[in-house]
C-alpha cells in the first residue's frame, strides 16, 4: 500500500468530512499507483501548457486597446505598449482571458457546490453508483484529483480544491501580480481544467441525487418547442441551469396530481435536466421516468421570443444564463417571477421564511412582480400554485400579448427604413426590409429570419420610431409558434465503458474518423439550423456526434424528409453515425470523460493524478474536435479552454473573437511539429495533426472543414488516415469547390490516399510537388514529411519514453 502525499484543509464547510484514514482506505481499494500530479496547483502542469502553446501560438485580438483596471489608468496599450504598472497589451489580454475563463469556471463549480449542499440536505449521502456498464465512473475527478469517489460526500474535497485554485488564480489578476502573457494563458488553461472538473462534479451529483440516466443510448424522447406547452393548462417555466427548485416543482405537481392543471416547461439547461429525472437505476422515492412528464420550452436564445409568444404564466429562475431583464419582461406581461438561487436575486424581497400561502397570494394579486424563495421545496410549491392561480388573473394581459393586425400594420408602416436597427443587429438582419415587405402584406422575410434573430432587443432600443421589433416577429410567426412541436432525446449522461471498448480501437486508428462535440447557446451567426446541418453532416459521415445543452435543444427543431427529428433519424449511442445528447452544459464533462476513458480503458493508461499523460494521449491519438457555435457566455470560454488543456481542439463561431484569444499552429515552422517517439525517445518531424487548438471560423462551411481537419492525429493508421483525408477532401470539394490546398502534408504513404482520388492525387504529388512515385506499384518513394509506421508511439512528454536510444 502506498502512502498518499499532500493534505488539504477545508474550513467552515458544511457536510464535509475528511480524514486521512479515509484517504488511506481509498488507496487500498484502488490499486492504481498515484500519478505525479494529484490535485495540481497552478504551476504543476505549466510544462504541459507551455508544450501546447509552444506549438499552438497564443493569438490575441484585443477588443479594447485600453486598460482601466486601476487608478493609474486609463492606459493606452495600443501596439503592445506598456501600462503604468508595466504590463504589456499581450499581458493585459492574457489577464482578461483568464478572468473570462474564471467567470465560466466558477459558474460551473458554484453550481456544483450548491447542488452538493442541497442534495445532501434533501436526500442524505448517497452511494456514487454509475451502474453496471461504467467502471471508470468519474474520469476527470480520478485524473485530476487522484481519487475514486464512493458517495456524494466524496465530491466535497474536489469542490474545495477547485475553490482554492480559483481564489489563487483570481489573485493573479491583481495589478502587479502576473506579468507574462504565456503564464496568464497557462493559468487560463488551469482554470479551464478546473471548469471541466466542476462540471463533472455538478453532473455526477445530480445524476445520483435525481436518478438521471447513466449513459442510456435509448434515453426517452421528450417534447420540445413552444407549441408543445398546453395553453389550456397553467404553464410554469423553469429557467436556468440548476435543477434543485425545478425538480421540487415537478415533485409537487406529481404528489398533488396536478398534471391536468399545469404544464411544466424548461428554458436553457434546467430544461434538459428536468427531463432526465427518474430515468436512471431507480431511486428510493422518485417515480420512474418522472422527467418525461416535463416539457422543454426551448434553448435560452428563444427566451425573449417565448415571452412575446405568450407561452408562460409563471417563471422560476435559478442560475447562470438568465437574461438580466427577466423581471421587467415578465412584469410587463403580468408573469410572476420566483428567484430561487442566491446568484440571481433581481432586487426582490427575500420571502424564504414566509408561509407559502402568503407568497402565492402576493404574487397572484400582483402585489409584487416577483419574490425570492431560496428553499427549493418551497420555491417549487409556490411556483406551481402561483402558475395555476394566476392564470385566470392574467387572462387579460395574456390576451394582449400578440399585436393586433391593426397594431402590427401601424408599426410596420411607421418604419422609415433608417436602418439604425441593422446597425446593431448581431446577425446583421435587414429588419427594414422585413418591415417594408410586411407593409405590403408579405410576411415571408419575418418568417424566414425568425430563427436567425437572436432576440437581443438591441434593435428596439435604437429604433427612433419605437417599433417593438420582437413583437412584430411574434405577430408574423404565430402559426410557427403554435406548431413548434418536436422531440428531443433526454440527456443520456456519461459514455459507457462498454461503448469505449467498441470504439476505442477504431477511434485511435482513425477508422471512426472522429468525435465531434457540439456545444453552443444563443448567439448563432446565422440561425439555429446550422447546428442541425453540422450534426447531420458528421453523423452521416460516420463520426460520433455528441452534443449538450442549448445546442441539443436547437438541433431538435428540424426534421428530415421523412419528418424525423435528428434523434429519430440517428441512434443515440456513443458510436460512429450516432448523435448523442449527453445532457445539460455541465454534462460536457462526459465529453472530456470519453477522451480519458479511451486512454484508460482502450490503451490502459493510468489516469490517477496523471493529467498531462492523459492529455498527451488525447492530443496525439484520439481524433476529437469540439465546436462552440452560437456560444454566448463566459462558460463557453472556460469549456473550450478546458477541452484545449486536455488536448482537444475547438472551433468557434465568428462571434467567438469576443473571447479575444485563439491557439493557432504554424505549418511553416517545422520545429513546431517535432514529436517524440515514445519507443526510443527519437525525435520525429510530424505533419501538423491537429493543426490548431482553438480556431475561429467565419462560416458554417469553414467550421465543418476544420472539424474534419482537426480530427487528424499522428497515430492514425493508413486506413484511418485515408478515411479522415477522404472526409476532409470531400467537404472541401462540396463546399469550397476544390481539393484542400494542403492535403499533401497529411500523406505519409500511398495507402493514406482516398481511393476515389488516388490516381489524381499521385499525379499531382509527382507533377506539382516533385514527389517520387513508383507508378507500377502505385507507391510513394519520396516526398512525405515522415513515413507512416504502424508502431509509432507519438508523445510530447519525456517521461513517456520507454527505452532511450
Amino acid at each position, binding site marked *: 500500500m502506498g502512502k498518499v502525499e499532500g493534505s488539504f484543509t477545508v474550513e467552515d464547510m458544511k457536510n464535509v468530512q475528511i480524514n486521512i484514514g479515509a484517504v488511506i482506505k481509498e488507496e487500498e481499494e484502488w490499486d492504481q499507483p498515484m500519478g505525479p500530479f494529484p490535485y495540481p496547483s497552478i504551476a504543476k502542469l505549466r510544462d504541459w501548457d507551455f508544450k501546447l502553446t509552444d506549438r499552438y*501560438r497564443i*493569438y*490575441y*485580438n*484585443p*477588443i*479594447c*486597446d*485600453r486598460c482601466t483596471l486601476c487608478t493609474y489608468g486609463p492606459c*493606452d*496599450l*495600443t*501596439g*503592445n505598449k506598456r501600462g503604468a504598472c508595466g504590463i504589456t*497589451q*499581450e499581458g493585459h489580454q492574457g489577464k482578461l482571458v483568464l478572468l473570462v475563463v474564471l467567470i465560466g469556471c466558477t459558474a460551473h463549480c458554484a453550481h456544483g457546490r450548491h447542488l452538493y449542499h442541497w442534495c445532501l440536505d434533501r436526500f442524505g449521502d448517497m452511494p456514487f453508483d454509475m451502474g453496471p456498464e461504467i467502471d471508470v465512473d468519474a474520469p476527470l475527478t480520478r485524473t485530476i484529483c487522484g481519487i475514486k469517489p464512493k458517495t456524494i460526500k466524496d465530491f466535497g474535497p474536489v469542490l474545495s480544491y477547485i475553490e482554492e485554485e480559483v481564489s489563487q488564480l483570481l489573485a493573479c489578476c491583481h495589478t502587479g501580480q502576473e506579468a507574462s502573457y504565456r503564464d496568464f494563458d497557462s493559468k487560463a488553461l488551469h482554470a479551464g481544467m478546473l471548469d471541466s472538473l466542476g462540471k463533472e462534479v455538478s453532473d455526477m451529483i445530480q445524476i445520483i441525487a435525481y436518478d438521471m440516466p447513466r449513459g442510456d443510448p435509448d434515453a426517452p424522447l421528450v417534447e420540445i418547442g413552444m407549441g408543445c406547452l398546453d395553453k389550456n393548462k397553467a404553464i410554469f417555466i423553469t429557467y436556468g441551469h440548476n435543477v434543485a427548485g425545478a425538480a421540487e416543482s415537478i415533485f409537487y405537481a406529481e404528489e398533488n396530481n396536478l398534471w391536468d392543471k399545469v404544464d411544466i416547461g424548461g428554458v436553457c439547461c434546467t430544461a434538459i435536466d428536468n427531463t432526465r429525472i427518474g430515468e436512471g437505476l431507480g431511486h428510493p422515492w422518485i417515480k420512474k421516468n418522472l422527467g418525461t412528464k416535463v416539457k422543454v420550452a426551448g434553448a435560452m436564445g428563444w427566451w425573449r421570443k417565448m415571452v412575446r409568444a405568450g407561452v408562460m404564466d409563471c417563471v422560476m429562475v435559478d442560475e447562470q444564463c438568465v437574461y438580466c431583464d427577466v423581471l421587467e419582461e415578465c412584469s410587463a406581461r403580468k408573469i410572476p417571477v420566483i428567484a430561487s438561487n442566491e446568484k440571481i436575486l433581481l432586487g426582490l424581497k427575500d420571502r424564504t421564511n414566509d408561509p407559502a400561502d402568503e407568497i402565492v397570494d402576493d404574487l397572484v394579486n400582483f402585489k409584487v412582480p416577483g419574490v425570492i424563495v431560496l428553499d427549493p421545496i418551497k420555491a417549487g410549491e409556490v411556483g406551481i400554485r402561483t402558475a395555476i392561480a394566476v392564470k385566470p388573473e392574467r387572462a387579460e394581459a395574456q390576451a394582449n400579448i400578440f399585436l393586433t393586425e391593426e397594431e402590427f400594420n401601424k408599426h410596420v408602416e411607421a418604419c422609415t427604413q433608417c*436602418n439604425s436597427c*441593422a*446597425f*446593431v443587429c*448581431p446577425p*446583421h438582419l435587414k429588419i427594414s426590409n422585413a418591415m417594408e415587405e410586411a407593409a405590403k402584406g408579405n410576411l415571408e422575410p419575418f418568417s424566414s429570419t425568425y430563427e436567425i434573430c437572436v432576440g437581443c432587443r438591441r434593435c428596439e432600443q*435604437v429604433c427612433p420610431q419605437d417599433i417593438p421589433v420582437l413583437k412584430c416577429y411574434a405577430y408574423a410567426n404565430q402559426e410557427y409558434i403554435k406548431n413548434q412541436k418536436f422531440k428531443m432525446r433526454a440527456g443520456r449522461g456519461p459514455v459507457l465503458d462498454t461503448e469505449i471498448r467498441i470504439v476505442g480501437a477504431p477511434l485511435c486508428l482513425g477508422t471512426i474518423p472522429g468525435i465531434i462535440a457540439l456545444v453552443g447557446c444563443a448567439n448563432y*451567426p446565422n440561425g439555429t439550423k446550422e447546428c442541425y446541418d453540422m450534426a447531420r453532416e458528421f453523423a452521416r459521415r460516420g463520426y460520433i456526434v455528441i452534443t449538450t445543452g442549448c445546442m441539443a435543444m436547437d438541433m431538435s427543431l428540424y426534421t428530415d424528409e421523412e419528418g424525423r427529428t435528428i434523434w429519430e433519424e440517428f441512434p443515440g449511442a456513443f458510436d460512429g453515425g450516432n448523435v448523442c445528447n449527453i445532457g445539460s452544459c455541465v454534462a460536457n464533462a462526459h465529453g472530456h470523460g470519453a477522451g480519458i476513458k479511451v486512454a484508460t480503458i482502450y490503451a490502459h493508461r493510468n489516469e490517477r493524478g496523471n493529467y498531462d499523460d492523459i492529455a498527451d494521449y488525447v492530443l496525439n491519438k484520439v481524433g476529437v474536435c469540439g465546436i462552440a457555435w452560437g456560444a454566448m457566455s463566459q462558460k463557453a470560454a472556460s469549456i473550450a479552454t478546458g477541452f484545449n488543456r486536455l488536448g482537444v481542439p475547438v472551433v468557434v463561431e*465568428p*462571434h467567438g*473573437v*469576443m473571447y*479575444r484569444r*485563439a491557439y*493557432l*499552429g*504554424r505549418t*511553416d515552422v517545422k520545429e513546431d511539429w517535432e514529436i517524440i517517439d515514445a519507443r526510443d525517445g527519437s525525435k520525429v518531424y510530424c505533419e501538423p495533426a491537429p493543426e*490548431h487548438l482553438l*480556431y*475561429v*471560423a*467565419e*462560416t458554417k*462551411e*469553414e467550421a465543418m*472543414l*476544420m472539424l474534419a481537419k482537426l480530427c487528424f492525429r499522428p497515430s492514425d493508421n493508413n486506413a484511418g488516415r485515408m478515411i479522415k483525408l477522404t472526409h476532409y477532401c470531400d467537404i472541401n470539394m462540396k*463546399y*469550397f*469547390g*476544390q481539393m*484542400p*490546398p494542403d492535403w499533401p502534408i497529411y500523406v505519409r504513404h500511398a495507402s493514406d490516399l482516398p481511393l476515389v482520388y488516388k490516381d489524381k492525387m499521385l499525379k499531382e504529388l509527382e507533377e506539382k510537388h516533385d514527389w517520387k512515385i513508383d507508378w507500377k506499384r502505385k507507391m510513394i518513394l519520396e516526398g512525405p514529411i515522415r513515413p507512416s509506421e504502424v508502431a509509432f508511439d507519438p508523445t510530447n512528454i519525456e517521461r513517456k519514453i520507454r527505452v532511450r536510444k
Partner: protein
Amino acid sequence: MEMAVDTTKNPVPFEMAEFHGPEISKTYKTKVLGAIIKKSKRPLLVVGAELFDDPVMFDKAIEIGKTGIPIAATAHSIKGFIDRGYTENVYQIGFNPLANYLRFKDWMGLDGKGQYDTFILMGIFYKFASATFSALKNFNRDIRRISIDRYYHVSADMSFGNLAFKPDDYHAAVDEVIAVLKK
C-alpha cells in the same frame, strides 16, 4: 477622372459599440486609397464569405486580382472565384490562421516570397474583420491596414466611411479604387 462617391463621410462603426481605443481609422477618398495600394510593394487582398451576399463583388475582387494583387480567399469564398474561372493568384486560407501568420515578421507569405506590407480587406463578417484589424494594429504595426469594405472599420489605418446601406455608392467606390489601380 471624376470621383463620384464621397467615402470620407460617416465614420461610424457598423456595430455601434465597436470602439477599440484612442487610435482610430481615418476615412479616405477612393483616389488616395487606390494610390496607396498601388504604391505598396507586397499588397494582399483578403476577401471572405460575405461576397456571396453581393456576388458582383467577386467580379470586382477578380479585377483587383488582375492588377497583380494576390487574393486570400477566406472561409469558402474560394468557390466564388472557381465558379468564375479565376484561380490564378487566389489562395484558400482561413481568416484566423491568415491573421496569425500576418503578425509574424518571418512569415514568407502565401507565395513564399515574403511578408506583406499592405493588408486590404473586404467582405468578411464585421466583428471578425474588426477584431482582426485590431490584432494587427496591436501586434504587427509594419503592415498597413486598409479597409475597402462597405463598413467603416475603426481599427484599420485607412477605411471608407460607412456605406453599408448604399450598395450603389459602395460598388462605385470600389470601382474607383480599381480604376486607380489600373492606371
